[in-house]
Structures are given as C-alpha cells and as structure tokens.
C-alpha cells in the first residue's frame, strides 16, 4: 500500500507501507547504525519518534526474542529504504514486517532515506505524519500541531516498583524508560536492583536505603519531567547517584545546570567520545536529542563528544555523582565503554573515580 511521509515543512516522501497500516504522527529522527534495528525499535527512548535508518537494507537478520530492549516496540514508525523479505539468522524468530504488525507500528519502505536524512540534517528534527489516505493541507497541519510528546516518560516507565535480586550493592533505579541492557549490565555485576517508576518520590526511593541511585535513559525533553528533577534534588548529597542519557540531563538540571535541544540529535553507533579519565577515545552508542548545555557548578567534565564537543559525561567528586550522556550498555552498538558500569558501581559504593 502506498503511503506518504509528510514533514511539517511540507516536504513529501512517498513509499510503501508495511507492518501495521495506520496513520501516525511523530517526530522524525535518523539513526546511522548499520545493525541493531531490533534494539532501536524496542528502546523506550524513541517513544514518540519515527526512526529513519540511514543504512538501506533493514530486517536482514529478522527479529528474535533475546535482543529486546523493553517489552514492546516504542517507535511511532519505522522508515527504511528496503526491508528484507527473507531474513536469515540462527536466532531469527520473526520478520521485521511481522513484528511491526504485532506491535501495531507502521513501517514505510522505498524511501530515499539519504535524501530524507539530509533534509533533517539541514532543517533539524521535524514532526511529520505518515498518511495512508489523502489528507488536505489543513488536516495535516491540524494533526501535526496536535502532536505532543511531553508525557513520554510516564508512558514508558514501569507502572510498579519491582526488584531484581543481587548479592553486591543495592541500587535504586529510577526508570524513565530504561533499556533492558542497562539492567542486565548492572545485574551481571551483582547489583541488587530496586526499580522505581519515574513518578516515585525521594522518600519512596530513600526508604529502601539503597547504596546508590541510578537514573535511567528515557525519551523526550528532560524539562518535561520536573517531578523527577525534584526527586533527584532531594537525593543529592544523601546517596551517590549515577546516570545515563536522560538521567544525566536530569541530574544536570537538578544540580543547577541547563540542557538544550540539538538540531537533529545523536542517534547511532559511531560517536567518538574522549574520556579524560583514561585519556582515550571510545566509540559509543548514542541516542539523544537533548544535551547538557551548561554543567552545574562543581562538576568536572569527564567526557566530550569529538564531533561537536558536547558534554558526554560529568563527575562531582564531593557528591559522589557520575553520569554519562552516551550508552555504555550498547545494544545496539559498541561495547567499548562497558567499564563505565564498573566505575558507576565504584562511585555508588562511595569510592572515587
């Protein structure tokens, strides 16, 4: 079935719909990873977004049940040049098409994804609609204007508090849309985890008396979740805090720093980050539209992005707070920075970097 991607600036890309055929509105971002579409689809940070893959062939190895980053797919739509009809891999359990159908998500193929990527690069992230029937310009405008992603975190956070057993330190996790591989990474290092919904108050979190608190990744603008910032403010100084991605931005806001929106974000597996602790450069997995613009007073920058010099990590020695913007849990992407989790644990145990 023919379908159109109509950007808010009026540009139209025509392709063929697959997956679950329904009209969708969202924010268009592009991801430059050549593998890892399954992890991308199921990453809660993409809530509200339509993801364009710059690599042209997608779905080659199908979908399996092991590589899920959450219990469902969160993207609004999945835009590719070419979807594979005949995936193959020893773990392939579903096709991309089948999985999207089951998740009620529309796919769009046959798009000149490079041209679309360049449009987003030039104009910045844009809202858009995927139309499966003719719409008038005013209908389109109305629908696009109605799009709002401010409630994203509350949509993807856990509804209930839960625990994951572990023998070593006890970490309270604030789930703003956490990727499973973060939990797996902490669990693999023996952490006992108590996972809280994003709406949890500082009292609730401190009541389990954790050794440290971890703030997760998640979708949208950190300024959309002032309640989490508020909770963090009250935890600061009481417990060591570590964070990834959105969590890192929330920490910065809580400590008096500021965040800003990037033109088209960082979404991919090839971002070089200079680590001032080891003085080496690591290739990292990234997925964010916002960055820390001003770091809070008293923080030391531990990491910067070599491409655009944005802040990628900060450390408060006195407060035992350490956070990174990139994704050490990878999934998808390079596992080069897995040691960050060891550093997190060290900090949460009260140690210094």
């Amino acid at each position: 079935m023919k379908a159109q991607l109509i950007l808010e600036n009026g540009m139209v890309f025509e392709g063929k719909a697959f997956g679950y055929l329904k009209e969708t509105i969202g924010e268009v971002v592009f991801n430059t990873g050549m593998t890892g579409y399954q992890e991308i689809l199921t990453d809660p940070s993409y809530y509200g977004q339509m993801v364009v893959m710059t690599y042209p062939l997608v779905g080659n190895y199908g979908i399996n049940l092991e590589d899920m980053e959450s219990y469902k797919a969160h993207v609004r739509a999945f835009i590719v040049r070419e979807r594979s009809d005949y995936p193959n891999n020893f773990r392939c359990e579903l096709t991309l098409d089948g999985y999207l159908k089951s998740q009620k998500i529309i796919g769009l193929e046959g798009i000149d994804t490079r041209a679309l990527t360049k449009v987003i690069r030039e104009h910045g992230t844009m809202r858009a609609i995927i139309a499966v029937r003719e719409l008038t310009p005013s209908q389109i405008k109305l629908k696009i204007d109605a799009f709002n992603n401010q409630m994203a975190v509350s949509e993807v956070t856990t509804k209930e508090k839960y625990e994951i057993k572990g023998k070593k330190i006890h970490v309270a996790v604030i789930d703003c849309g956490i990727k499973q591989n973060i939990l797996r990474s902490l669990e693999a290092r023996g952490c006992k985890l108590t996972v809280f919904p994003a709406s949890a108050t500082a009292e609730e979190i401190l009541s389990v008396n954790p050794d440290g608190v971890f703030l997760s990744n998640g979708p949208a603008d950190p300024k959309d979740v002032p309640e989490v910032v508020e909770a963090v403010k009250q935890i600061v100084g009481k417990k060591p805090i570590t964070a990834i991605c959105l969590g890192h931005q929330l920490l910065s806001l809580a400590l008096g720093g500021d965040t800003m929106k990037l033109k088209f974000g960082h979404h991919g597996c090839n971002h070089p980050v200079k680590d001032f602790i080891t003085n080496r450069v690591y290739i990292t997995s990234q997925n964010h539209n916002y960055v820390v613009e001003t770091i809070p007073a008293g923080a030391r920058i531990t990491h910067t992005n070599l491409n655009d010099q944005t802040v990628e990590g900060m450390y408060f020695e006195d407060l035992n707070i350490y956070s990174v913007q990139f994704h050490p849990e990878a999934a998808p992407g390079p596992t080069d920075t897995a040691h960050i989790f060891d550093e997190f644990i060290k900090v949460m145990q009260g140690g210094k970097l």
Partner: protein
Amino acid sequence: MPRDMSIKKVLVIGSGPIVIGQAAEFDYSGTQACQAIKEEGIEVVLVNSNPATIMTDKEVADKIYIEPLTIDFIEKVIAKEKPDSLLAGVGGQTGLNLAVELHDKGILEKYNVRVIGTQISAIKEGEDREDFRALMDRINQPVIESKTVETVEDAVAFARKIGYPVVVRPAYTLGGTGGGITETEEELREIAASGLHLSRVHQVLIEKCIKGWKEVEYEVMRDSYGTAITVCNMENIDPVGIHTGDSIVVAPSQTLSDKEYQMLRRASLDIISACDIRGGCNVQLALNPDSFEYAVIEINPRVSRSSALASKATGYPIARVSAKIALGYGLDEIPNTVTGKTYACFEPTLDYVVCKIPKWPFDKFYTAKRTLGTKMMATGEIMAIGNSFESAFLKGLRSLEIGQFSFKHKKLQECSLDELKEKVVIADDERIFALAEMLRRHYREEQVCKITGMDIFFVKKFKWIVEQEELLSEMAYDELTPHYLRKLKRRGFSDKAIAELIGVVEDDIRDLRFKWDIVPVYKMVDTCGGEFEAESPYYYSTYDKTDEVEVSDKQKIMVIGSGPIRIGQGIEFDYCSVHAIMALRARGIETIIVNNNPETVSTDFNISDKLYFEPLTDEDFYHIYLKEKPMGVILQFGGQTAIKLAKFCDKMDIPVLGTHPKQVDAAEDREKFDEVLEKLQIKRPKGKAIWSMEEGLQVAEDLGYPVLVRPSYVLGGQGMEITYEEEQLRRYLVNAFERDPENPVLIDRYLMGREIEVDALCDGEEILIPGIMEHLERAGIHSGDSTSIYPSVNIPEHIKEKIVTCTRMIAKELKVLGMINIQYIEYKNDLYIIEVNPRSSRTVPYISKVTRVPIIDLAVRAMLGEKIGDMGYGTGLYPEPQNFYAVKVPVFSTEKLPRVEVSLGPEMKSTGEVLGVGVTVEEALYKGFIAAGKSLPRQGGTIFATIQKYDQDEFAGLAKRFAALGYNFVATEGTAKKLQASGIDAKVVKKLSEGSDEIINVIRSGEVNIVVNTPTKGNDSNRDGFKIRRAAIEASLQILTSLDTLRAMADIVEKQIRTEETNIYDMGAGADE
C-alpha cells in the same frame, strides 16, 4: 600527542612488482602514506623495484630508488641516505618481510634506524602462527585447532589427530601461496611439501577445517595511545575455505545481527590492542552460522588488499591515517579529510552496499585449474556501489568485462544440473553463474545454501535476479511498463541485459527510459551516512529522485580509467590515468574520473575533482557524460577498457579528446590498417585475415612456416600462437573458429628478428619519441613478457632513423593526438611493423621515469591543442642518455596458477615488471634480474637443460661459456648428446615419456640452480616439456624458455658483477648521478 619531531627522514619500502596476491593496492596505500609523511615536512626515501607506480614519482617521495627489493640493496640505500626511521607496513607482505629481515640481521640497529608504526615484535607476534596462537590463548580469543609443522610427517601426524579435512597454510607467503584444503593423506603430503618449500621460514600450519562458517573481516586502526576503532567490516559471500581475495565480498556485513557484529568487532579490537598494533590491521574471523561460536583466522598487521577495499568502500583513508599514527599522532588529532570537520577517530557508517568481485586470469590461461581454494588466484578486482545488494552486485558483474551483463551464461546453460552442482560445490571462477543457472532450473534454494555454505539471504537475492531474467525472456518490448522498468533499474539491471533478454537492442531500452524519464542520480560516499556535510567528491549512481552532484560550469574533462587489473592491462594504465588528471588539473581544468577498481590510486577521491565509482560500460559512462557535459572525454589512458568506449562515443557524438575513434578503428582493423601501410609504403610481415580452415592452411602454405596466428581483435596477445607446421595450425584454427566464428583469424609470416618498441607523442603533425626500446628476447614473445632495454644497445643508427620516420608517418596518417605505441621488428637489416596501438601503453611509466620526459603531461597538452615543438622537449627522437641503462624485466605469477603454461610466447603471461638501472647494460640487467627473482651463482652452478632440436646448436655455444665458469649440466638425452659433442660434460636423465620420474626428482632435489627449456609446443599439459616447466615453477626454480635471456645471464656471470660493487641511483635527482 603531537607528532614525534625527532622523525626527519623516513624510509618506505614498496611492494615490488605486481603479482597475484600483491597488486596495485600497495601503490595506492604506499602513495597515500608517502604523501601523508611528506606533507609534514619529513623527507621520504622510497625503495621499490616497480617502475609502473605512482609512488615512485618524484612528486610522491624525495628520494626514489627503483632498486631490487633485497636486503643487500636496501642496506645500500640505508647506508647512503641514512634515514632515521622505517615505515614497515605499507609495502605489503614484501615490505613487511624485508623490514623483519633488516631488523633480524641487525641492519636497522647498525645504521640507527628505528621502526615507526607497528613494531617488529608486534609484526612477528601477528605473523608467526605459534606466537599468535599463544597470544590469543592469553587473551581468551578462540582460534582454530592447529599446529605449525616443519616436516611433512609432522603434518600427517597432526592431521590424524584432529581429523580430516584439514587446511594447510604456509607461513610468510603472499596471498596464501602454497596452501590448500585436503581430505586425504596423500594430498596432504603433496600440499605440505610444496607449502614448506614456499614458506620463507619453512613452516606450514595444519589446521582444522571449518568449511561452511561465515568469513568476516574487520579493518581496524589503533594509535600508539591505545585508542582503537574499526573502519569497516566485510562479509564474504563465499564461506571460509575460499581465499578472501577470491571471494565475492560485501561491505558492510549483511547477515550479522548487532550482537554478532559487536562480538566480532570487540574481538578484533582486543586482538590488535594485545598485539600493540600502531596503525592499520586486518583481522579475519570465522563465524559459525548456527551459534555465537567464532574463531580468529589470522591478522595482517599492515595495510592490505582488504584495507584498500575498505578505504574505497567507506571513504576512510586507512594508509594515510596509518602513516600519521606512525608519526606519533593520536587518532583524535588526525582530521577526517572527507568531512573536513570531524576527526579520523570515528567509525564510518555506510548508507549503501558495496560489492567486490574478483577478476581471474582464466580467460588468458584457459588450461589452468580453476578451482578456488585457500590460494588466491585473482589478478585484480572490481568494486561496485549501490543502494541495494542487487544493484551493487549487478553493477559489479558488468564491471568485470567478461561479457556478462546478466546471469545468463551461454556455456553453463548447456550444462546438466549434475555438472552445475559439481561446479558449485567445488567452486571455481564461474561458480556464481552456475549457481544462478541452478536456481533458474528451480533447484531448491535451501539446498544451494547447504552445498555452498552461502547464506540464504544472498541466495534469495540471486534468485530474484534470475526470476526477473526469466520474466524478461518471456516479455515483448511493448509489454515493458515504466513501473517495472524503473524497478529493474533500481535493482541494477543494465539496459544491455534487459535488451538481450527481451530480444531488442540496447538503444531501444535507453530510448524508452529517456521517454519515461528513468535516469540515474548520483549519491555521495561520505563516511557518515549523510549525518555531516561532506567535501568528498566521490559518487555512485542510484535510481532515486534526489541528486547530490553539483555540476560546475567550469571547463572540465572526463578521464576513463582502466578497470580491474588483469594480465595485459595492469597498473601502468592507472599510472597514465592519474597523470592525465594531474596534467589537466595543472591547467585549471576540472577533472572527472570514472573507474571501478578499488585497488588503484585513480580511485582515491582526492586525485581528481570528481570520482564516479561506476562500471565502465557504454550505459554507465553515458549517464555520467550527460550529467557532467564535459568538453571532452579522454580514452587513451585507460587501456583497452576505455578504448572500447570509442565506438559508442563516435555514435553518440561525444567529443573524444585525442585520436579520433575512427582512427582508432583504422589501427585496430586489419584491412584498414593494411591500406594505411600500403599507402605509406611501410613493410609488415606478410599476412592475411582468413575466415575458414581451408583458407588458413592455404595462406600459411603461401607464406611459409612458421606463421603467427591470432584473433583479429586482441588484448594482451590473447589466443596468439606461433605454429611451425600444418597439424599445429589446423588444431589452432579449429579452436579459434569454435570460440569466435564471427571474426576472422589473422595469419602472419613469423620473422625471427629483433623486436623494438616505441612510445610516441603526436600533435597530429609532429612527433616526439621519448625512447626506443630494444627487446632482449627475439620476436615472437609478447612485448609485455620481454625484457626491454633502454637505450637500445644493438640497433644501428639507420634503423633508428627509419623508426623515427615510420613512426612519424604512421602517427600523422592516423592523425594521432596524444599517445601511440608501435612495435617493430628489425629483420635482416630492414624494418617491419608488427603492431600499432593508438593509445598509451605499459611502457609509458618506465620510459617517463627513465627519460624524465613527462610523457602523459605532454600527451594531454597535445590533445588540448599545444604543439609538440613548443613543449620544450624537442621533436623526433629524444636524446638518449650516455652511460645509463634501464632494463624492464617481466615478473610472473605462474607458480600461483596450477596447470598454467610457463614458457614465453606471443600470449602475455606476466603480471608485473621490475626495473634494473645501471651505468652499463650488464649492471642494469643484473639488477633487473635480481629484482625479478632471477639470479645465478657467480660460478659453479648447475643448469638443467632440455632443448628442442632447432635450438641445440645455439644452446651449445652458450653452454660452453657457462662451463668455462664452472657450471655443471644435467640434460635429457638429445640435449646431453649435443653438449657432449661440443665437449661439455652433461649428466643424462631419462625423459618422463620414457616412464621415469628422474627429471622431476632432479628438479625437486634442490641441486639445480636453473632450468632451461625451449618448448616445442605450449599449452599441452601431457607433454614432457610442460611437466618439466611446471615442476620447476612449483619447486620455485628459475626457468628460462628463451635462449636470449640465458645469453644475457651468461654476459652477467662472465662479467662477475657483484652486488657489493653495483651502485644505486636516486631516480628523483639525476639519472647520471
């Protein structure tokens, strides 16, 4: 860290002549590395024996030594130039081995030269199988169960332990030479023996066979501070067991999930970190398709063929960055030249698919055993870029110039399914066509995967292509719809393929497309998937709507490259293309290059103003032409590949700069050319074009035997033979007409005279001959395989004058604008012409370097309308140097191609060449022979001779000279008798045809220094001569099949030239130094 300021003078060792396993990629990477060093203000001293390279240009290095790549000569260079550093990893395996040897012999220490980049200890750890295994064990990286052995018996014992099949891999050889997979002990003994012999350290690895696993490569970089990245990963469509150089390869990997991709990436980085690699490295891994199990196959701690491919596939300049790392920079300090904004410290992301297909020499060597295995046999490769797998693959197929535009393969269509299956299982160069043919006959896809080990992902893609071919075959022209045609074009189908399948001509499809506005657009290769603005003018075509090319309104010219490296069309043509571009750029003209060979300098995106990485077919070329509308196109530097476009240019009124296409035809068409010669009264060996067997035999009878026979349109002497008798001619003609019934066969009288070769420049009126070259071997041996001497030694003045006159007449008559190459024979004090090529030839780089006449630059200027007389190099014959000689010696790869005829003849067989320079012709010859791997003991060697009866008198004369120097002889009966009759002792061995293996045993025993065999008949693998020659080649013995070469060797040995007394010459400074 900034660069190490103590580095002031760097020695770079090149890779030497082009051989199978070591081709143009090292000119590309070497040139890039030298430039990266030179731009830092550091002096570059270069040693390379190969004159046909860009890297030996004076613009690339400060001091250039075209000298033999042996320890002795490199030590001379070190002693003279006193470099403080050596960069080891850019000259291929040759350069790496030499660096190790220089280190081991204490030469580096003696002259205080340190190795920069990856250190010798790391190179050894990466290259020595046992050390590498131990290292892998330490860092918990799985390797394949294996053992290094030094005897055949140990090999057999270990194979018994791990079970067959096993793989044999010799240590320190090029392109896996001498290896193989075997299922039987008998075969193992054979392969192990040959492998042990070929290995520099006399070791082979016996390894458990993991056939059917996926073969995946990672190109990785690491700096001295520990930062490590991967540039590209590549997946071989052919599974483990077929050398990656002989595999169809895609980049990036297509069938690996992120988990697998990252697992292997991490392993690669861990390995190079553990090895302490400083620069680029290639890591080959095998992945079990049914689990996460993997194994490290090997690493190459240097730039490689794969790294050249990865550079072109991603736009990331691996050699350049490696060189910068060696100078001390960190990856985060080296700018990314593609974006101009980011740094070299990132991982390229592709938003297209790259497909590499090998180019094999079996069209030339049709008797060769074509089975692919762990030994590389391809001479070159093509790369194609598309935004689907199908388009990349189909573009690749037509780039190969094997006459295939679709999967439909005439010969294989006649095979039974059984035969096809066998071809697919054993795997030869035609495997992919056999596989397609099986799919066409509805052989089950799953089963194809099972018997080939290919992933069904790819097989399904091939099946789709086959299905469209079938649909088209049933379709009428007027049934084509815009929708379907667009779909086919998006998937890479060529007009020619569609036309052939439907049964119309190519023009019909093009007309239809233009009517329906189905035309390609061009996308950029930018390393970053469009995320950042890029400055790389590097493009490929797609059938999308959005075009990224900015067409300028400047004056511009398109240069057509020469495609994949093959026998007869080597790196020389890339040299010419690159120089043409430089000449145009120097004149402020915008340059556009079109080529499809990833190994070359010409496809480096900053050589030209724009690079189109596209197939060199009429269609693909035409689209670029229409896009860019250049003022003209230049065809004469791209070998036969580019010349093939001349007819099309003529038809489409595309302005060709230089000699007009009609004149090209006049030179290549026998009858038209005869008219030209007739008119000019220039002699050629009598001959005729014949269309039938009867006619042929009659013509030969009239001319008198021996006669030279060949097909009318030739490339590198394909299918050419000297026949001595009717029976032989009859056999040749049957074959020739069977292969090509549509074109005539040419029969010429064979003149056994001196062959002379000339490259000339012409502005339409006046000519300049930079040099007249004399061939060492008499006429009848392909000019590409002859030892060529400049300036000539034996050509009398009046013949030289005649050469100048004839060349001027021909060039003028053919209205040559630019280059012309003419081959003459001096026979009984008269001059005959044998061949004219109205284009650049393989001797141009060599003559340019030796004479310092910038031949290509002048040729381009002539094409642009300048007069030769005004260029400052005079007209007529350029003055020949005094007391300076340069000898070009051919180099062969026949030891890598089982069952290939070795003896020299009219068909070209060499893959590369070296240059020897000296103040006497003997010194030049001596160095040339050494550089080509031919040398004789100064006294007391043993010559094994088996000489055909017509040559025995001549041989006896030569033998006397060798005997006087203390040489011994072993010979077959006839030859021995002749020697004895001349008073020379000779040990007699029985002929093979007498049922004895004595000859083969003598050859293998190691007691012989050289085998001299003049053949009676080539290409007949049942004959004694053929077997002797192969045995000699396989035992790595020198073999001479021309007495002229032997005579030159006698001259050298008599002169008692010693390496210690020879000089080295900086070709960048003054030839007379």
